[in-house]
């Protein structure tokens, strides 16, 4: 194990997340992990910054995920949102694959959660 992975959380074997699939990790707050059709891995906060919807249930096209509820799109690389109703970005987390396993390092920024939601869920 490198010192780098020491600070990282092992998620699951890469083989458990097929291309085109996404998974929601029940972290605080939840994180969405995407394996794109092109084979890239991305991790962002799972909860849309507009309303409590899971971005892991959204639609990935290229490097963007569209929220399944109101169609704001978030850039998987930067977390930026393209258009309302969501206005604030989601955080981006570091993902790496080592020895066939997915590792994740959570961003240290403050998350932008929608009204009524805390890192522990509903107020």
């Amino acid at each position, binding site marked *: 194990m490198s010192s780098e992975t020491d600070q990282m959380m092992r998620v699951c074997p890469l083989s458990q997340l097929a291309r085109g699939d996404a998974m929601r990790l029940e972290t605080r707050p939840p994180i969405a992990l995407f394996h794109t059709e092109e084979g890239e891995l991305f991790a962002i906060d799972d909860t849309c910054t507009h*309303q409590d*919807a899971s971005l892991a249930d959204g639609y990935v096209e290229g490097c963007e995920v569209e929220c399944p509820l109101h169609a704001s799109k978030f850039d998987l690389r930067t977390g930026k949102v393209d258009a309302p109703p969501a206005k604030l970005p989601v955080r981006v987390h570091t993902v790496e694959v080592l020895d066939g396993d997915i590792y994740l390092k959570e961003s240290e920024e403050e998350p932008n959660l929608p009204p009524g939601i805390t890192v522990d*869920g*509903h107020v």
Partner: protein
Amino acid sequence: MTTAPEKLAAQGTHEKISESLISTLPGYTYVDEGVFEAEQERIFEQMWFCAVRSADLEKPGSFKTVQIGRESVIVSCNRKGEIRAFFNICRHRGVKLCMEESGQAERSFQCPYHAWTYDLDGKLIAAPNLTKMPDIDRHEHGLVKVHIREYLGYVWLCLAEEPPSFEEDVMGAIEERLGDVHKIDGYDVANLSLGRRITYDVKANWKLIIENFMECYHCATIHPELTEVLPEFADGLAAQYFVGHGAEFGENIKGFTVDGSEGLDVIPGVAEDQDRRYYAITIKPTVFVNLVPDHVIIHRMFPMAADRTIVECDWLYLPSVVESGKDVSASVELFHRVNQQDFDACERCQPAMSSRIYAKGGVLVPSEHHIGAFHDWVMDQVGDVVPESSHGVRKEVR
């Protein structure tokens, strides 16, 4: 439980009036709301119902909504190109999901009320705060599926929990008319292309339209063009009077066209003994099929009210004919005229159905007696419904 004849005898319908005449259904069965509601519930919502042409739903997300009995149904194409059908109702608070008759869903069906969102297989994929309600099963609270069969290039739906046998009801109707269900195979109906579609909004009860389609006693009077092409229709015996009989084209008739001119390219699989002949099949409750050597005509009825039926009619030709842009108008025009003539006649019957003169119905002459079997079948389904008009309030004795 009483058998059909006992029930009919008790109702005094379908009675033999003289050597030549048997009675039709009583007038109220064509106008009474209670009877129509029973038909919706026990016929259209129970049987296999031909809803949509499969080729109309080729793109993922493309959908149509159809009225089957009292229910609205979404028929759509999923991401893999497979057909799916659902009740057009959000599982949350009952909003009608799709208002349009047809359209293109982007990626999902989303309720416009609270944004409950379903994928193209009907699974609930998103809703506000859904992640905080992990006890909501996304399949169980997905859209309610409708049974599907694809046959002859059409999507057939059944709203019943336990659908009846498709083989017996649908394919059996073809077998009954042609004598052998495989006699339709040569027309390769599923692989033909749509040359023309005309939708008719008919102000008549669906049963009047079926009865009209089943007999040809009217042909020489209201269908001059058709009788010119099929001279044997002048004797009043419809192709549906027989088993396995196709009405033969007249001697100088080149094709099944409005003026007897040459038709389009003949469908290669049509057998020698089927050439230059016209076959007609009724598939209860709402489908008519016409087979001629160069095309197939499919009528789908959508009964909307006791006195209103929408009929969608498709003219299907070889794909090469449609792709080449060949003129099919003389071909379409023949049966389009027949349709107009028939539906005019049905609309002219409808108002009299509530007349006291027609309370016991009219009569069927021998060349129409086979319609009696249809009447028996109808009464077997809804013969117990007491008309509202006779009691002021609707009662069911079942």
